[in-house]
């Protein structure tokens, strides 16, 4: 009977802890999004890699080296 009541206590404590931790993860995530968004807008929109000639040159050079001249770039897309 003692073990059963401990198991019931663990059900309560366990589920509450999991919810609280994930609640904090969600709240922290939202806070971080807000902070990062504010900082990002302060810095202005970074140039898209797709259109930046410097970035294109760097990617082309990297592909050239890694594939030893055999590779070809058909599309450049941001990962996210």
């Amino acid at each position: 009977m003692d073990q059963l009541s401990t198991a019931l206590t663990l059900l309560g404590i366990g589920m509450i802890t999991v919810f609280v931790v994930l609640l904090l993860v969600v709240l922290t995530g939202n806070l971080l999004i807000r902070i990062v968004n504010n900082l990002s807008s302060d810095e202005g929109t970074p140039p898209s890699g797709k259109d930046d000639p410097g970035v294109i040159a760097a990617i082309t050079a990297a592909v050239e080296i890694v594939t030893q001249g055999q590779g070809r770039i058909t599309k450049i897309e941001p990962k996210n």
Partner: protein
Amino acid sequence: MDLFEKLYRMTAIQDIIDHPQILLMLLIAFFLLYLGIKKQYEPLLLVPIAFGMLIANFPGGQMGVVKIDESLTLYQIAKEHGIMNFVYYSLIKTGFLPPIIFLGVGALTDFGPMLRNLRLAFFGAAAQIGIFTVLISAVAFGFDLKEAASLGIIGGADGPTAIYTTIKLAPHLLGPIAIAAYSYMALVPVIIPLVVRFTTTKKELLINMKQQDKLFPSKRPIKNLQTLKIIFPIAVGTIVALLVPSSVPLIGLLMFGNLIKEIGATTGRLYKAASDTILNAATIFLGLAVGATMTTKAFLNMETILIIVGGFIAFAISIAGGIMSVKVYNLFAKKKINPLIGATGLSAVPMASRVANDIALKHDPSNHLLQYAMASNISGVIGSAVAAGVLISFLAG
């Protein structure tokens, strides 16, 4: 004649004749190998586990894990009990390998889907209910609390977490619990549709997540996901370490693995090692050593059958718990959520998400909910590790 007798004694044949139950263990090992190789049920783990089980059950090979005096040095263990006991007592019994596997898993995890749909993370919490309800049932069936907690953790659907918890609480049950955990994870494509069929309606399964997003767009779109992905594992690692320190070996290394992935080129070599060499080596040793714990004495008993049955129930309740939490949420929210998102709240990443996506597409070919399912699926990994931390904190020692 003497020579022939010596040759005969050299083989394992007489031992197998004397202990025919060994044959049953060999058959189980062959069956698990068949499932891993031919049916491709979690082959990366099931094949090493099954092969470890196979070689452990041949008498005279000293490859089966046995109970030994733990005051022996590792050298003495290797010399007197063979290399498998050395691997088991140095890498498994110390709790070393499961966190190392979490390091690799972290390096392979993308928190992007979760960050884009943070509110879905709650369903990863609801889906841990199976762990605790089966804990209670197992106590009612006569398991002690530590054994019951190890059985319940199968419901978290996370192999390394189940193994880590069992090592800490009931190491004598490691073999059957690992087999049950990985078998059910492999059977996710069967178990999730089964539970979904009994707990949802067609109307609910037709809820289109993308349409809901269009109807109720996010108030805060992410402007710089890459920076966020770097800060996030540091923040989550810190929060968990503060609240449930006993889960830090798992969550801490999961987050570290993820961090070295997200930093990019500067830690690229660490990421490569964690996600490739280290993860693969750890998987081999973990699989073989866990398989080697499944000797006739440790495996062929009533407890194993109860663990297999209890593990399935834990799994099913976890899935149903996630689904029910979505249903309750939908009662109050304007922006509806497909209950399949709740079904993926248990870990089993990414298979659970893929299965949920397939079910959704069957009902509506335009309803691609993989990204949404991944959000609750990844939070389920955190949730089950936290649940394991709670169990270890309260019951270990």
